[in-house]
Every structure is written in structure tokens, then in C-alpha cells.
């Protein structure tokens, strides 16, 4: 029981990170119908910028405290947003309205570029960071086993919920959110009604990158070890989460992320660590066999 509770806490905090990345995938997919394969690497960039920001702050003498973490988060969000914007501008905008596979290949190319860019500029070695936030709350004690709800995990859950709440407000209540939803429904019609679709799509990428930056920062705080390759696996998992929840659906992405996080954690805890990815993928395949558009996805009406 205590063990399961601990896994639940771990799984939710991991799932939150996946969910944040998955939202970026699903937003881009909803609005322009392409898989942004480089999104996982944008997450990796976010983690690296956060690492650099942490080191800069420690040079400046500010070591810990909520203000430092907030600064790191903001720095990572700002720089990563710029990366997201540039990515869209360079690799996807010229291909707008082109056929479906061209942006996909372009995205895979961009993913290779980003990975190798970071490998060259920051080195291939794994970067270990001393944990910034230590300690936690003891939730339950079962004999020698102590269920620990660490401050980092609390931070992850709190920050993710706050960011997602802000994001939901943005999408449902602001003019930009309305423009985004309009573009998602019918881009041509939205353009006819005076929405600057190019700008809206750019901002979608910027917002997606910002969320990925939050995920990257949280990943750095939680695991403390990053390298240039973390983006691939996290990206694939998050994409799986987005598809599991129904690609294009924002609540679906978060739900899918949580599910993937929980499946992975529980599988590694009770069965085998080696096959945790196989478990996550198997659930995906099984879900899609019975619900071909994911858990919360809309059935697309297709006409000849």
C-alpha cells in the first residue's frame, strides 16, 4: 500500500512533465496538422537553458529560494520561446500549405540539427547538477518504508497545474486563444475573417515552446542530470501521450501524459524497468485498436 502510494506520487509528477510536453505537440497538431518532431528537442533546450540560468545565478550569489527558481523558469521560458519561434520560421513556415510529409521530414531534420547543435555547443557529456530543492514531507510510514512526497515533486505538480490553468485561460478567454481555436477549426475561414493566421501559428509555437521550457526546467530540478539526447525519448513519450489522449485535444494531452507517467512508474515498480517503454507503447497500441482516435479525440468525418 505504502509502496503503491509512493509510485502514485512519482507517476503523477513524471506524468505532469510528459503532459506539459504533450500539450505542445497537440497544440501544433491541432492548428496545422503536423507532427512537430523537434518538440522533444525544444524541451531539451529548455532544460539546458535552465541549467545555464542556475549556474549564472549561483555565480551572482543567488543560490536558492523560490525567487531563484522563478528566475530560472522565466529565463528558460524566454529563450526557449525564441527557439520555438525560430524553428517555426525557418523550417515550417516555408512549407505551410505544402503536402503532409514535407514538414514531417523538415521537423526530423530540425530535431537532428538541434541535438547536434547542443552536442557541439554544450558538449556531449552528461551534466550533473546538485539538487536545488531538497527534502520533503513524510506522508506515511509502513514499517521501514517511508512514503516521501518531496518538495521537488510538490513544486512540479504545483507549477504544472498553475501553468496549465494559465494556459487554459489563455485558450478559452483571450482573443489570442479564440484566434487559435478558429485557426484550428478552419484556417482559411479564419484568415478570411481577418485573423492573422501566420502570427497565430507563430504564437502557438511560442506557447508550445514555453510549456516545453517549463517541463525542461522541472525535469532538471527533479532528475538533475541532462544531456543533449534527453529530448528524443521524452519527445516520443510525450507524443505517445498526446496520441493516447486524442491528438488535438488539450485535456487529452494532459490525461495521456498522466497515464503514460503512471503506467511507466508502476510497470517499473512491479515488473521490469527494462520493458517500461514497451508497456507504455503497448497500452498506446491497445487503446488505439479500440479507440482509433485516442481517449478524448474527435472522430474525423472524412469525405471523398
Amino acid at each position: 500500500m505504502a509502496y503503491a502510494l509512493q509510485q502514485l506520487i512519482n507517476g503523477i509528477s513524471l506524468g505532469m512533465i510528459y503532459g506539459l510536453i504533450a500539450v505542445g505537440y497537440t497544440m501544433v497538431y491541432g492548428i496545422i496538422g503536423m507532427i512537430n518532431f523537434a518538440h522533444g528537442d525544444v524541451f531539451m533546450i529548455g532544460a539546458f537553458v535552465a541549467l545555464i540560468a542556475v549556474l549564472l545565478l549561483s555565480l551572482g550569489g543567488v543560490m536558492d529560494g523560490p525567487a531563484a527558481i522563478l528566475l530560472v523558469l522565466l529565463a528558460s521560458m524566454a529563450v526557449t520561446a525564441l527557439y520555438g519561434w525560430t524553428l517555426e520560421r525557418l523550417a515550417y513556415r516555408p512549407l505551410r500549405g505544402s503536402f503532409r510529409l514535407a514538414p514531417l521530414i523538415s521537423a526530423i531534420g530540425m530535431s537532428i540539427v538541434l541535438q547536434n547543435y547542443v552536442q557541439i555547443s554544450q558538449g556531449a557529456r552528461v551534466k550533473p547538477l546538485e539538487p536545488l530543492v531538497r527534502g520533503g514531507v513524510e506522508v506515511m510510514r509502513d514499517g521501514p518504508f517511508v512514503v516521501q512526497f518531496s518538495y521537488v515533486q510538490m513544486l512540479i505538480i504545483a507549477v504544472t497545474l498553475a501553468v496549465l490553468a494559465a494556459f487554459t485561460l489563455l485558450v478559452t478567454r483571450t482573443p489570442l486563444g479564440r484566434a487559435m481555436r478558429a485557426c484550428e477549426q478552419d484556417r482559411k475561414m479564419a484568415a478570411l475573417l481577418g485573423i492573422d493566421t501566420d502570427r497565430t501559428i507563430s504564437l502557438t509555437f511560442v506557447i508550445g515552446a514555453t510549456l516545453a521550457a517549463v517541463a525542461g526546467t522541472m525535469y532538471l530540478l527533479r532528475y538533475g542530470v541532462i544531456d543533449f539526447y534527453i529530448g528524443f525519448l521524452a519527445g516520443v513519450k510525450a507524443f505517445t501521450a498526446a496520441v493516447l489522449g486524442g491528438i488535438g485535444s488539450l485535456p487529452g494531452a494532459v490525461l495521456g501524459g498522466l497515464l503514460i507517467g503512471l503506467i511507466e512508474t508502476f510497470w517499473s515498480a512491479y515488473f521490469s524497468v527494462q520493458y517500461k517503454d514497451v508497456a507504455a507503447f503497448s497500452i498506446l497500441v491497445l487503446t488505439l485498436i479500440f479507440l482509433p482516435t485516442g481517449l478524448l479525440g474527435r472522430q474525423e468525418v472524412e469525405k471523398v
Partner: protein
Amino acid sequence: MSRTEDRRSQARPAAGESDRPRQGALIALKDAALSALVALGLFAPMVGLRTDVAPSGGLYLRTRWADVAILCGIVFMLRLALVLWTGRRGLQPSTAPRPWTLWLQKAGRFFAPALLAVALVLPFIPGVERYELDLGILVLTYVMLGWGLNIVVGLAGLLDLGYVAFYAVGAYSYALLALNFGLSFWICLPLAGILAAFWGILLGFPVLRLRGDYLAIVTLAFGEMIRIVLVNWVSLTGGPNGISGIPRPSFFGLSFSMSGDPDTFAGYFGLEPSPLHRVIFLYYLIFALALLTNWVTLRLRRQPLGRAWEAMREDEIACRALGINITTAKLSAFALGAMFGGFAGAFFATRQAFISPESFTFIESATILAIVVLGGLGSQIGVAVAALVMIGGFEFFRQFGEWRMLVFGGAMVLIMVLRPRGLVGTRTPSVALGEKRAIGANLIGEGRG
């Protein structure tokens, strides 16, 4: 096409004739300055501040502002040159015929036979050494994989991101059958193909109902699952250490050993024993396998099955309404594509004599898919050209060391931005009334499966 034209005319400033150059230069300067500013924002944290691991284990920052300045300068100059050269419209993707397209089309008629002839005599061209032959084998392997995937993606229009799984199945089938049962390469080759095709069908079944990107992620998941199993099933596959000592193929029972005995290749034909013989043999082996893939594809395109694939790619619902069995068409496309992947895998195993899960990562699938799309979906010659450009070019950039992958990825983006329909912009329709004429690639569907 018309959209492109619209944008171009919009972008031109409506100023007087005399103002235009100066204004253009000003706009270009402003534009380039903005780009440089963005570049500063991008590079200042990531390039300017390098995190290094100190000997004590902690991290410290090292600044490299000079590099940032150089990079921003490069971005500034590039953007300036680009804007001045193209006007404000920037780079435009194009599938439209260019002036030189017609000339290229004429030359294209001789291009494929010429390429084939060069490939045929390559081992005997003076100056071609071991290195060039090895590169030729590598390129031909990718040509074959590209042609195999082309059946699934280019003809049937099913986006497969896990093609490398079948390559892995072929390679491991050959290695395990040859090592455990002592079967020869020539028996294992068809077996590897059959096993891979079987896996193609097995993985094809669950995805029959899926469309578009759902299909893409599931195929990707299958590819990763097979790799994870290969890594972890240590008792069968040797895990991350892989399998070594895989037997080499023989030439009608004659081995390629250096002893010069009568039962070796060199001894039987009275040649000087040379390690080059085996390389040349492997070269022709993969050449023949690749040609087989091409031939089967071309023949199938004329048959009901191939036509059903292409109809399915153009419109699945209409195709179903016309009474074509979609299940058969999809599964056969997966099976045939997988079979050729399996052949290529068996060849890969026998050539390397060592395989490990390292060789079957997602990047491999992405490379093969990139070759198919960069060459031009459904175009056989396009795939060959793209394999030559990407794999050959990749080797060419060897001296760049770690920059090589960066250039590789950048080239993928650039080719797609400039030629979204691939390097070869025309397709030959499988069926035509009267004379077959090359048509624009944008007239061919891309499939939604």
C-alpha cells in the same frame, strides 16, 4: 502555384522606380539586423555560456562571446545576401517546373541508364578501391531500403516510421539461423525475407483501422519495441553486445578465404587471393538485391495489386467503394515492404559479421523515410538519387567530424524547404491513355493512411 505568385507580387514594394533599390537595401539591412538580434538571443545562452564539468565533479560556466559574435555576423550576412537576392519574399518552396526542368527531363531519360551502367562497372573502374566499394555497398543498401519503404509510403501511402524494425528482424533472423542451425546465407536470405514479411503482417493487423499520424506513432512504437526487446532479451540476442562472428556468404559454395586452396574462390578460378574479391561480391550481391526490389515494384505497379495500392493512396474511401479489399492491399504493402527490408537486413548482417541493436535506432528509420521523401515519393529514380546524395554526401562530410550530423539535418530541412515534393519533381503514371508522359509530382496523392 498561384498562391506563390500572389505572395510574390504582394511582397514587392509599390514605390517609384528610382526609390526601389535604396528602399530595398534599407529593408534588407533592417531585416538582417533583426535576424542578427534573434541570433544573439538564440546563441548567447547556448553558445556563449558553455557548461563544463569540473574535475571536482561540479559544473562551471565558460564564456565564449567571440563565437557568438561570429555566429551573429554570419547570420547577418546570410540574411542580408538572401534578402537582397530574392527580395522580401524569402525562399519559396516550389514544385513548379523551372526553365531547366525541360532540359533535365530530356537528360533524365539517359540519367537512369547511365547511373545503372556506372553502378554496374564500378568495381572495375580504375581508382576504385576498397573505400569506394564499401561506400557503394552502403549507398546501395540504403537504395534498397528506400525502395522497400517506397512500396509502403510511396505507393500505398501508409506512413511508416518504424521501418527499421523489419531491417532488424531480417538481420537477426539471418544471424540466429546461421549461428544456431548452421544454415547457409542463401537459405537464410529467403527465410529472413519471409520472417520479416510475417512481422509486417503481424504489425499490420492492429493498425488497419488507424489513419495518418496515429499510424505513424504506432509504427514508431513498434520499431522502438522491437529494438527494446533486442536489447533486453540477452539469452537470445546477446543484448546490447549484439551478435558477432556471423558467417560470410559463399559464392556457389566457394568461400572467400585467403588460403588459395582449390575450394576457395580465388583458388578455383586461379586468381591471386585478395580481400577485394569478397567486397566486390558483396557489392554485386546488394546491387542485385536492390535491382530485384526495383523490378518487383515496377512490375507490381502494373498489376491489380499495385494499382490497388495507388488507388488507396489517392483516395481510400473511393477505393473501398469500388470494391477493392483494403485489408489485403494494406497488409500486402506492409508485407512486401517488410520483406525487402528483411533481405536488406540479412545482407547487412552478413556484410558486417556483427550486429547489435545500436544499428536499428529510430534515426535509421528517419533516414530511410527521409531518403524516400527527399527523392520524391513514389519515384524509383528519386530514391536512388536521394540515397546517393544523402549517404554519399554524409561520407563526403566526414572531415567535418561532429559537424557532420548538423549538416545532414540542415540539408534535410533545406531540401524540403526548396523542393517539398522531392529532388525529382516528376512522376511517371502507372497507367496512361496512349503515350506515358511524365507528370508533375503535385498531381500525385500522398495518402492519408
